[in-house]
């Protein structure tokens, strides 16, 4: 059987794209394909799984599956190949989100969008993580498109959480107060500043002992610093945790200790953490922007996309309602578990192979 090799610019071990690529390789190999991973850069933890893309020597009939989310010289390299190119579009954050904070990142994503446009003419099949992303592909001139959700193995989340973190969070819980959680890179498009604002309103209106944890590596140093300043300015500095780097067991402990997952992101191509929260039975309050409504479905409180959806009082009231209404919370948690089952690795892996076979 021919090979389907994957290419991606940056292979980081712990992020959604890195996991997706490893799961895709497993699914492909189980289906009998040869499949290797070729990268421009790899994190030391996953370097053994990948080779540099200049070492790629495809055989006739091999397909090249490119994971597109950022700018890279790999796009130009792929455009010159004679082999069929497939694209998996993880979505590109619009440059306007970074222009104020990280001009270099803004230039990179602007370049990525140009590359997305250029690859349209040489791509045989473009897969997207959501219908929202698929629409963007069609707008950029891609002919054959299909939605294949991100491959996530939720069984990984059942591993043991970090004991020390779990004990610390248990002790913190003893003093009362709801625990808010958001997981995602500290980036302007994720709008952690709105989460901090809503959290400050929640403490002022309903629960002075509440705590917030924003888990995620920083994309912009300036934005992170502004978040710390903001938390101090609105008087919740001591109640907001911003752990830059967490290990996977520490992340599990955070999910297990959370009472509510609050996402006020303005731009998401899919947002895996929403499903992770649902897996842990953590109810979700999210702003209905971009791909978020597709991912959440009826398993969360979807706040309006407009200004009301990020108003601190509206968000705080939504969280208060959710935590004070057992029936609503139970219903959303049950719906969340059903939703996670729909995105199980077995389901999404099968969907990926079906799309691959149908578009040969």
């Amino acid at each position, binding site marked *: 059987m021919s090979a389907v090799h994957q290419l991606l610019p940056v292979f980081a071990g712990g992020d959604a794209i890195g996991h997706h690529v490893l799961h895709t390789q497993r699914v492909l190999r189980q289906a009998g394909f040869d499949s290797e991973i070729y990268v421009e850069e790899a994190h030391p933890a996953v370097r053994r799984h990948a080779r540099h893309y200049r070492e790629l020597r495809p055989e006739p009939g091999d397909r090249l599956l490119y994971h597109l989310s950022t700018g890279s010289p790999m796009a130009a390299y792929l455009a010159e190949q004679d082999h069929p190119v497939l694209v998996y579009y993880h979505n590109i954050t619009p440059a*306007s*989100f970074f*222009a*104020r904070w990280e001009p270099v990142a803004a230039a990179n994503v602007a370049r990525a969008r140009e590359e997305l446009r250029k690859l349209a003419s040489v791509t045989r099949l473009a897969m997207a993580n959501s219908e929202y992303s698929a629409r963007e592909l069609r707008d950029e001139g891609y002919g054959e498109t299909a939605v294949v959700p991100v491959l996530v193995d939720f069984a990984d989340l059942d591993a043991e959480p970090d004991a020390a973190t779990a004990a610390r969070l248990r002790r913190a*819980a003893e003093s*009362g*107060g*709801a*625990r808010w959680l958001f997981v995602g890179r500290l980036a*302007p*498009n994720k709008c952690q*500043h*709105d989460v*901090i*604002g809503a959290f*400050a*309103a929640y*403490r*002022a*209106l*309903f*629960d*002075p*002992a509440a705590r917030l944890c924003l888990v995620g590596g920083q994309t912009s140093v*300036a934005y992170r*610093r*502004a978040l710390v*300043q*903001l938390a101090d*300015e*609105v*008087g919740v500095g001591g109640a907001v945790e911003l*752990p*830059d*780097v967490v*290990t996977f067991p520490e992340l599990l402990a955070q999910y297990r200790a959370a*009472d509510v997952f609050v996402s006020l992101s*303005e*731009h998401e191509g899919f947002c895996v953490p929403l499903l992770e929260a649902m897996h842990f039975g953590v109810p979700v309050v999210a702003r209905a922007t971009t791909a978020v409504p597709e991912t959440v479905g*009826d398993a*969360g*409180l*979807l*706040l*309006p996309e407009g200004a*009301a959806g990020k*108003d*601190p*009082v*509206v968000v*705080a*009231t*939504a969280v*208060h*309602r959710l*935590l004070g*209404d057992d*029936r*609503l919370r139970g*219903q959303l948690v049950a719906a969340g578990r059903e939703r996670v089952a729909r995105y199980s690795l077995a389901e999404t892996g099968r969907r990926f192979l079906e799309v691959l076979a149908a578009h040969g």
Partner: protein
Amino acid sequence: MNTAAAGPCRLPSGAVDAGTGPLSPAAVVDEVVVEARALEAASSFPREAIERVRAATSWMAAEATPGDVRQAAQLVVHQAATPVEPQLWSPGPLRRLVKQVVHRLIGWYVRVLAQQVKALGEATARVGLAVAERTERLQAEAASDRAAVSARLDALGDRVARLEAMVDGAGGAGGAGPAGGDAAASGRP
């Protein structure tokens, strides 16, 4: 699970549906928006604190407002505030220790540099704001001048029209006078 502690504000009683059927999340959100408005209307609402939150988060709005000089100046101040207490956490204890030692060794010097960078940032922002204020004042003055000139032109136009009407009236009544003759010679209507 934690239970939300009693806070200073309470939702209106009856906001939580006592039925047993499945709830519509969309309908709950509609109720939440109404509840939030009701909260804001209450006399116990901590208006000052919430307005402070709104003001603090709005300037961080995800997308920049094109041409907003004040927003740009505020960003210069934020960017110039160099953190001197970085995250010292690392997965390994040795790395953590190295970071702490390096931090201790060079901390005094970094603090001096950070203060200078911060001062430079604030000075730059002040220059930007001063230029913006001056530009705004000049624009306001120019707009005012334009309005005055326009009003004066309108008044002159009216005066010319009045004079022409007078001349036309005089011509019709008693033949071409000196003014009427001039108007006809100049080809004016």
